C-alpha cells in the first residue's frame, strides 16, 4: 500500500508541475491571470505605500533589497521575541518554562527569516500564541515569498540578453505573496481545520481522562501556521514534536497535502524556468534529475525503516522500526515525510530521525548535504540545482574541449569562479562548524542523549540542516545552548545569504551576456545525456565533499550491525 502512495505522490508532483509552473511564469512575467481583478488593486496600493515604482534593478541592487528586507524582518522578529513574555493571551505563564534568552532570540529570529525554522525550543513551552501568529506565521509567508522572488530573478538572468537588470525585488515579493502563497495557504489551512488541526486561542485544556487521571492538553492557533510552514518550505512546528504531533498532523490526508505543499512549487519552478527561457525541455530535464534522486532516496530509506531492526533481533518484536513514529503514518508516511522534508528544505518531519536506522538517516542527511537540489527550498532550490548543473557544464566543456556554455550563456572564468565558490561554501561551513563542535567541550556538551558515531551524526546533521536552511534536527542533540544557538545561526546566514548573493551575481552576469547560438559543438542543455551528466556531477561533488564525514557518522554506525 505504501508503494502506491509513493507512486501517486510522485505522479501528482510531476503532473502538477506543468500547470503550476506555467501559472508561475504568468505571474512573474506580469501576464494576465484569473486573480488579477481581485489582486491588482491590492498590489498597486501596496506599491504606493512602499513608494516603489517597480523600476528594474541590477543584480546588486536586487540582492541589496533582499538583504535589507531580511535584515529588517530579523530585527523585528528579534524584538518581538524579547518582549513576548509581556504579550497578552495564552498560554499561561506557568507553561512557558523555556526562558527566551538573548542567544535563543537571535537564533530563532534568524532561523525564521531565512526559512530555516530550526527550533532550539519547544513551541508549547516557550511562545505566546501572539508570537506564533504575528511573528512566526508572518515570517513563514515573508521569507518564503522572498525566496521565490530571488529564484525568479535568477531565472531572468538566463531569459534575458544584453540586459543590465533582473527585475524588481518588491514587485516579485508582493506577487509571490498575493498571487501564490496567500490564496493557496488560505484554502489549504481550511482543509487542515476540517481534518482536525485546532484553531483557537483557548487556555490549555484540563481534561479528566477516562481512567480519572489529569491530562493537560496544549492548544493554540495551530492551523494558521501549519499550511504555510510547508508551502513556504519553512517547516518549524507549532509544538515540539512538529509534524508528529496529532494536532499539527492529525490524519494521513493532512500529511499527504503537507508533502505536496512542500514539493509542488519548487518542482514546478523547473517548468517555469524552461518556459521563461523559451527552452521547455531544459526545465523538464532538471525535473527528471530531481525525480530520479528523489526516488533513489525514498527506496533506500524505505528499505532501512521497513525492516525489523537488527538491533532488536532477540527481543521478539516485529513490524519495522516504529521508535519515534506514529501509528497513523506507519513506515510509509514517515519515510515519505523524511525524504520530502529533507529534499524540500522544510523541517516539518513527522517522525524522529534520531531513532532511524543509520542508513535511514543517511538519506535525509545526504539530501541536505547535496545542497537542497532535489526540489529544494521555494525559489532557492531551483538555483541550487542550476548551480550544480553549471559545474556539470564545466566538466562537460573540459571533456569536449570547448568553452562551456549552458542554454546560450557562456561560462567564462568569472562565472566559473562564482560557481565553484557556490559549490565550496556548503562543505566549508558544514565541515568547519562540525569540526569545531566535536573539538570543543561546548559542542560535545550537546550530546546528552546519544554518543559515539551516532552523536557525531547528530552534530553533522544539525549543521547540514542549518546550512541547507532546512531546520529539521536529530532532536537528541541538546542544541539549546549559547554555542549551538550562535554557530547554527552562522550556518543559516551563510546558507541563505551567502549562496543567494553568489547565485544572483551570476544571474546578473548572464543577463548582461548575449545569447550565443547553438552549434554542433554545443553540449545541449536539454538532452537526456546532459541530465545524466548533471546527475553524476551531483553525486560526485557530494561524495568528494562529504564522504569522509559520512564515514565517521552513519556509515560507521551502520557497519556496527
Amino acid at each position, binding site marked *: 500500500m505504501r508503494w*502506491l*502512495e509513493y507512486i501517486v505522490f510522485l505522479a501528482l508532483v510531476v503532473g502538477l508541475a506543468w500547470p503550476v509552473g506555467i501559472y508561475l511564469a504568468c505571474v512573474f512575467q506580469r501576464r494576465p491571470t484569473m486573480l488579477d481583478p481581485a489582486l491588482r488593486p491590492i498590489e498597486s496600493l*501596496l506599491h504606493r*505605500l512602499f513608494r516603489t515604482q517597480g*523600476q528594474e534593478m541590477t543584480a546588486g541592487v536586487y540582492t541589496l*533589497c533582499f538583504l*535589507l*528586507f531580511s535584515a529588517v524582518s530579523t530585527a523585528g522578529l528579534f524584538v518581538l521575541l524579547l518582549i513576548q513574555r509581556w504579550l497578552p493571551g495564552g498560554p499561561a505563564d506557568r*507553561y512557558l518554562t523555556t526562558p527566551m534568552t538573548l542567544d535563543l532570540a537571535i537564533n530563532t529570529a534568524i532561523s525564521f527569516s531565512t526559512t530555516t525554522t530550526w527550533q532550539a525550543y519547544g513551541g508549547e513551552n516557550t511562545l505566546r500564541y501572539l508570537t506564533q501568529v*504575528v*511573528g512566526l*506565521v*508572518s515570517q513563514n509567508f515573508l521569507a518564503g515569498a522572498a525566496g521565490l522572488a530571488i529564484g525568479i530573478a535568477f531565472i531572468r538572468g538566463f531569459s534575458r540578453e544584453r540586459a543590465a537588470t533582473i527585475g524588481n525585488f*518588491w514587485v516579485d*515579493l508582493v506577487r509571490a505573496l498575493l498571487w501564490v502563497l*496567500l490564496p493557496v495557504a*488560505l484554502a489549504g*489551512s*481550511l482543509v487542515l*481545520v476540517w481534518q*482536525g488541526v485546532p*484553531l483557537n486561542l483557548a487556555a490549555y*485544556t484540563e*481534561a479528566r481522562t*477516562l*481512567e480519572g*487521571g489529569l*491530562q*493537560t*492538553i*496544549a492548544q493554540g492557533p495551530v492551523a*494558521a501556521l501549519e499550511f504555510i510552514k510547508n508551502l513556504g518550505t519553512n517547516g518549524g512546528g507549532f*509544538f515540539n*514534536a512538529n509534524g508528529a*504531533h*496529532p*494536532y499539527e498532523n*492529525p490524519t494521513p*490526508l493532512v500529511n*499527504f497535502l503537507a508533502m505536496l505543499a512542500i514539493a509542488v512549487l519548487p518542482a514546478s519552478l523547473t517548468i517555469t524556468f524552461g518556459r521563461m527561457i523559451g527552452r521547455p525541455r531544459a526545465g523538464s530535464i532538471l525535473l527528471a534529475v530531481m525525480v530520479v534522486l528523489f526516488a533513489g532516496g525514498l527506496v533506500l530509506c524505505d528499505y532501512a525503516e521497513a525492516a*525489523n*531492526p537488527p*538491533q532488536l533481533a532477540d*527481543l521478539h518484536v*516485529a*513490524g519495522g522500526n*516504529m*521508535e*519515534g513514529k*506514529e*501509528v497513523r503514518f506507519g513506515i510509509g508516511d514517515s519515510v515519505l515525510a523524511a525524504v520530502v522534508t529533507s529534499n524540500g528544505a522544510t523541517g516539518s518531519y513527522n*517522525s*524522529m530521525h*534520531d531513532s532511524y536506522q543509520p542508513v535511514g538517516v543517511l538519506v535525509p542527511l545526504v539530501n541536505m548535504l547535496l545542497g537542497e537540489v532535489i526540489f529544494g527550498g521555494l525559489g532557492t532550490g531551483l538555483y541550487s540545482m542550476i548551480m550544480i548543473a553549471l559545474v556539470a557544464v564545466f566538466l562537460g566543456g573540459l571533456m569536449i574541449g570547448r568553452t562551456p556554455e549552458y542554454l546560450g550563456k557562456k561560462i567564462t572564468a568569472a562565472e566559473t569562479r562564482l560557481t565553484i565558490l557556490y559549490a565550496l561554501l556548503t562543505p566549508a561551513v558544514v565541515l568547519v562548524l562540525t569540526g569545531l563542535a566535536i573539538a570543543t567541550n561546548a559542542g560535545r556538551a550537546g550530546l546528552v*542523549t*546519544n554518543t559515539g*558515531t*551516532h552523536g557525531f551524526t547528530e552534530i553533522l546533521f544539525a549543521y547540514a540542516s542549518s546550512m541547507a536552511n532546512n531546520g529539521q534536527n536529530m532532536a*537528541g542533540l541538546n542544541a539549546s545552548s549559547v554555542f549551538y544557538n550562535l554557530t547554527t545561526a552562522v550556518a543559516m546566514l551563510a546558507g541563505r545569504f551567502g549562496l543567494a548573493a553568489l547565485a544572483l551575481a551570476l544571474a546578473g552576469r548572464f543577463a548582461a551576456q548575449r545569447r550565443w547560438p547553438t552549434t554542433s559543438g554545443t553540449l545541449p542543455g536539454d538532452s537526456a545525456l546532459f541530465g545524466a551528466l548533471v546527475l553524476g556531477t551531483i553525486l560526485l561533488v557530494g561524495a568528494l565533499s562529504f564522504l569522509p564525514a559520512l564515514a565517521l557518522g552513519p556509515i560507521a554506525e551502520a557497519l*556496527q550491525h
Partner: protein
Amino acid sequence: MTLRDHLRTAFVSVILLTLLTGCIFPLVLFAFGRWLYPTQAAGSLVTGKGVVIGSRLIGQDFIRPEYFHSRPSAAGNGYDGTSSGGTNFGLSNRKLIEGVRQSAEAYRKSNGLPPDAIVPIDAATRSGSGLDPHISPTNAELQIARVARTRGLDEGAVRRLVASHTEGPQLGFLGSPRVSVLELNLALDQAFPLIRR
C-alpha cells in the same frame, strides 16, 4: 533610489506585509475556520457528563486491565499534553533497547502471552509525539482476550467492537490501518458499562 530609500521601503514593507500575513490572514482564517468547523477548531474535545475527558486526537494513558492500552510514551511522564516529543534514542543506544525489552515483557505479561510471543512493534516503542492516539490492529487484537476477561464479556463481542473501530488507509491508500484507543475505550464503556465499585 538611494540606500535610504531602499531601507525605508524595507521597513514599510515588513510592517505592512506582517499586518497582511500575520494579522489579516489569521483573522480571515479564524472567521471561516471557526464558523465552518467549530469542533475541530476547538481541538476535537470529547466530553462526558459535562467534563472534558480529553481530545479525540490526543492519546491518553490507560493502565487498567479493562481498557485497551495505548503505546508507551515519552511525552513528559507519559502522555503529557504540554510536553510532546519522542525518546530520540538511536537504535544503537542501550536505553532504547532496554526500553523496548521492558515494554515488550510488560505487554506479554499483562496480556498473558508466552515469553517468546512476537509483540507488535508499536506496543514496544514510543511514538514521535508521545501523544499517539492510535495502536495497530494487531496490537488491539492481542489485547482483546484480557479486556473481555476482566469485563466478563464474550471475546466475540469485544472483537466486533474493535473491528468497527479499525480505520483502514484514508481514501483507500493513505497511511496505515489503526485503532483509536480513546474512542475504542469510550465505545467499550458505552456498550458494556462498568459497574464501578
